[in-house]
């Protein structure tokens, strides 16, 4: 070890606390990078493998019913490699020992195993056998949740008939990597499952002999960018059979959520490390500049002894690089650990045949490289400063800094009212511009991370409140397989414990406004509906008008519609005429692209008596009534789905909010490290620089707390100014996140309340104060008598 390296080693070990503060900021940055980039790869590779394994569809077309022979025409379209007709329905599931009827999606699979589009991966048991018709393969998560085993019998209500089905196996499929029931945003394996039945059995059960109501398709290689065109053609061919929706893979719910998560990880793998490593570079910059200044005479002596500029420069640069290496090593270990935690978090939401956290050597090397780069960048200013020194000049003590007044002094009335302590603090803050800027930058980044974390939590809460407390207010929703008349409402009203029943009519169809088109639907509600209440941006209720549509903002944007415009709508069922409908209100919605209208207005347009496709119920809270209600619903005619809002909200809060809290805790921890590290660094450097000044104050009769308060005020000014600047940055970050995640399925509300700002500010101050405890301890420990006598 060269003598300079020995000097370096001793300098490093003598200021261990300070270095730890910087190294932990770097380590957090590297850990963020490693954990997020690793998970990006874990998910991306798992997704690619899984999609290939299941032969994931490139598109799907949902329609009322079409003969298989006519569906084959879609397979002939240019660019289409292969299609698979499928029968799919929603059904209720009657599980012994479970009060509530559960919801399921029933999908047909070939009777004999063959590779098909949107195939399944068996987890337990086997594929269908030849022994019986009524065999079912249950999706693995639902089976696991209800402890269902191959060999057990369950009851599915298919086409109004209660069918006894034997479970032969459990399976997963890539189209349900993120398993969502209708209208849900998080998987709920307790209440929603997927049930695969034999194609022949499906044809019988649903009266679909030689027909199907869904087409899955794969495109020829290289045709991915022409999906829209292909789907338009397919739709034209299938138009006579009533196309409900055409879905390119991009918009397939599971794929959409998964892809967005993966894209989000990729973005965060850049943004978060950039924040932390940027702060680390700023903090190193301050430290190294101070070191260079402090070692002025040493530098002069080294140069006088014949050390070259390059040797001295690299000696100082090495100081930063050592920090970079230690930070990267710690960050690598932490990142691998966090990565594993994140992967297991993803396993809770996403179902893959295999999702493991891997050790990617190249990512760890990249982590090391960016850590070193940022350390070198941070050290550059300090290291360059030593180059400029001429030996003779360097060996003389540095002339005192020229004192001059600061901007604030021009505000005479203010300045004269300040105590000398405050004047010292303000002058110190304004003169050490680089240090103040670095501190404020760190505080801003810390505050931005905190604000972003809090806003994510508040946004999630707000979304749940808005959609599931304010807009949807029913306790139980019933969806019918086919439209029913007014009598269904009376039947529902008569169910046990029902206080209020309101009809709902969902009509699927196409919207058109000039050149803009969109598949969707209209939900008919009664005039003064109390169980579904559309709301505006401020969450104020919007009444359902007698005539015209209340359209969600997202759909209005897609169709370029404003309030008062007229859109065209072609229902998928009935006469299928294009109707011109005025948009009378624009409503806010964070899920889907809902459109509301008066149910009687809708029925009139469809030229029908009042019809309904579902009923919403408000019930009392009597558990016995609820049990009786569920019992009766198990035999309620034509029921396709039963949803309990309470169950849905409970699941949402449990899954979303809990994982959100984990993330927020991590955010707070990371922000804490940034605040703590940068404040500690700045204050300890300030303390070291002003030992003599502080000793003088102690001699003059200032107590250690009074001296400490000077340092505290300095760090607090920097922290508060930085945090104030960081809060809008955090808001911007949340806004960018919301924009990045915005889709037709899901929008993330950007919500900041006074609680956001107060919590961010309070935490910033709390971190500042806790860092100051260490500084105060150092002030108490300072041997000021020695500092007083030491030569400057």
């Amino acid at each position: 070890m060269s003598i300079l390296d020995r000097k370096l080693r001793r300098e490093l070990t003598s200021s261990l606390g300070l270095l730890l503060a910087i190294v932990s900021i770097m380590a957090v940055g590297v850990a963020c990078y490693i954990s997020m980039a690793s998970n990006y790869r874990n998910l991306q590779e798992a997704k690619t493998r899984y999609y290939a394994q299941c032969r994931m569809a490139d598109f799907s077309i949902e329609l009322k019913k079409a003969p298989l022979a006519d569906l084959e025409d879609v397979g002939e379209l240019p660019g289409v490699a292969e299609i698979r007709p499928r029968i799919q329905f929603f059904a209720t599931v009657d599980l012994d020992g479970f009060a509530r009827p559960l919801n399921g999606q029933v999908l047909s699979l070939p009777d004999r195993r063959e590779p098909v589009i949107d195939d399944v991966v068996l987890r337990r048991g086997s594929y269908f056998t030849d022994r019986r018709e009524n065999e079912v393969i249950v999706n693995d998560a639902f089976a696991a949740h209800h402890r269902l085993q191959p060999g057990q019998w369950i009851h599915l209500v298919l086409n109004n008939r209660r069918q006894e089905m034997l479970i032969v196996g459990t399976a997963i499929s890539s189209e349900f990597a993120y398993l969502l029931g209708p209208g849900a945003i998080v998987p709920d394996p307790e209440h929603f499952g997927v049930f695969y039945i034999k194609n022949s059995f499906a044809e019988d059960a649903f009266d679909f002999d030689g027909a199907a109501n869904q087409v899955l398709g794969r495109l020829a290689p290289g045709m991915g960018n022409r999906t829209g065109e292909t789907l338009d053609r397919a739709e034209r061919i299938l138009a006579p059979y009533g196309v409900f929706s055409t879905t390119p893979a991009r918009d397939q719910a599971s794929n959409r959520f998964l892809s967005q998560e993966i894209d989000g990880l990729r973005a965060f793998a850049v943004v978060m490390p950039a924040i932390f490593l940027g702060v680390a570079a700023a903090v190193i910059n301050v430290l190294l500049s101070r070191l260079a200044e402090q070692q002025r005479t040493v530098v002069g002596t080294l140069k006088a002894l014949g050390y070259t500029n390059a040797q001295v420069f690299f000696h100082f640069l090495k100081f930063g690089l050592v920090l970079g290496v230690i930070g990267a090593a710690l960050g690598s270990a932490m990142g691998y650990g966090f990565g594993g935690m994140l992967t297991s978090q993803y396993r809770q939401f996403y179902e893959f045949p295999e999702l493991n956290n891997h050790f990617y050597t190249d990512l760890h090397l990249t982590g090391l490289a960016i850590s070193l780069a940022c350390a070198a960048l941070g050290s550059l200013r300090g290291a360059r400063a030593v180059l400029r020194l001429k030996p003779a000049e360097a060996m003389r003590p540095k002339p005192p800094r020229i004192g001059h007044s600061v901007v604030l002094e021009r505000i005479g009335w203010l300045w004269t009212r300040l105590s000398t302590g405050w004047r010292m603090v303000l002058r110190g803050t304004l003169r050490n511009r680089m240090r103040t800027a670095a501190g404020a930058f760190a505080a801003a980044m810390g505050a931005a991370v905190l604000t972003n974390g809090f806003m994510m939590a508040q946004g999630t809460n707000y979304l749940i409140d808005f959609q599931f407390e304010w807009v949807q207010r029913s306790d139980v929703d019933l969806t019918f397989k086919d439209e029913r008349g007014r009598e269904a409402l009376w039947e529902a009203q008569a169910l046990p414990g029902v206080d209020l029943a309101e009809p709902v009519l969902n009509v699927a169809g196409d919207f058109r406004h000039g050149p803009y088109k969109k598949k969707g639907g209209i939900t008919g509600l009664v005039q003064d509906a109390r169980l579904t209440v559309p709301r505006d941006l401020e969450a104020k209720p919007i009444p359902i008008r007698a005539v015209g549509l209340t359209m969600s903002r997202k759909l209005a944007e897609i169709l370029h519609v404003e309030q008062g415009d007229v859109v065209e709508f072609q229902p998928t069922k009935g006469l299928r005429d294009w109707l011109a409908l005025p948009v009378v209100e624009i409503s806010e919605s964070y899920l889907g692209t809902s459109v509301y209208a008066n149910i009687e207005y809708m029925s009139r347009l469809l030229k029908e008596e009042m019809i309904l496709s579902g009923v919403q119920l408000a019930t009392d809270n009597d558990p016995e009534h609820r049990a009786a209600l569920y019992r009766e619903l198990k035999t309620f005619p034509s029921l396709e789905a039963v949803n309990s809002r309470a169950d849905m909200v409970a699941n949402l809060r449990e899954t979303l909010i809990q994982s959100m809290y984990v993330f927020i805790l991590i955010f707070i921890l990371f922000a804490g490290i940034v605040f703590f590290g940068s404040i500690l660094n700045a204050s300890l450097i300030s303390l070291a620089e002003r030992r003599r000044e502080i000793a003088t104050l102690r001699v003059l009769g200032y107590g250690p707390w009074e001296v400490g308060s000077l340092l505290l005020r300095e760090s607090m000014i920097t922290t508060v100014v930085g945090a104030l600047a960081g809060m809008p940055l955090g808001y911007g970050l949340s806004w960018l996140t919301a924009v990045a995640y915005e889709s037709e399925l899901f929008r993330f509300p950007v919500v900041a309340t006074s609680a956001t700002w107060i919590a961010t500010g309070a935490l910033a101050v709390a971190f500042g104060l806790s860092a100051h405890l260490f500084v105060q301890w150092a002030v108490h420990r300072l041997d000021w008598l020695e500092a007083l006598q030491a030569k400057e």
Partner: protein
Amino acid sequence: MSSTPTAPTAVLLRFERVGKTFTMGEVAVEALRDVSMEIHRGEILAVLGPSGSGKSTILNIAGGLDTATTGEIWFREHRLSDFSPAELTCYRRDTVGFVFQFYNLVANLTARENVMVSTEISRHPMDPVEALRQVELEERMDHFPAQMSGGEQQRVAIARALAKNPALLLCDEPTGALDFATGKRVLRLLVDLKNRLGTTVIIITHNAALAQAADRIIRLRSGQIVETHVNEAPTPPEEIVW
């Protein structure tokens, strides 16, 4: 601690068999051995001795910057050696003024503000401008230390010390960093302070010539008092040559 006036010959500070041992690593260094002395109100006491003789240690103990290892120190009727760190802080704040060889001004503050650092925390302070007038620096009061000469900086330091109306002014080589003429001017200032305000001044120095201006001179060697000399006719600073 009260600063009630006492008779001119009253004892302000008394050292009784004071010893101080520093432990540096494994070596114990005896800085003071059995030092007993009295400092009277309103006198200028010069403590002379070569470096390492224990001058600074006496000053530090007298000023409440450091504590003795053995013996007792009395300030008026208070036993200083029993003071807690907090009480010592109060003692320094209200009773003692310090002047250092290298001034120890706060670089960030103007002359006036440097004086205010002291007046803001003391109980019966002088007006900072008045204190600067006493050292003939009221014209330069808005200058920063870096804009002043060494003599001016030392005068600011003296103004800072006397602005709190201290009972005891402790000066550590007050002219050590100054040229001859400036040094004499600073010395004159200290003598004037004593004459006009009755301040007790202890000057420690290794410059024997300087001691001619003192009322009493104590010589130290190796931590012990080797000579106490009463100077019946102190030499005016202007006539001292070194």
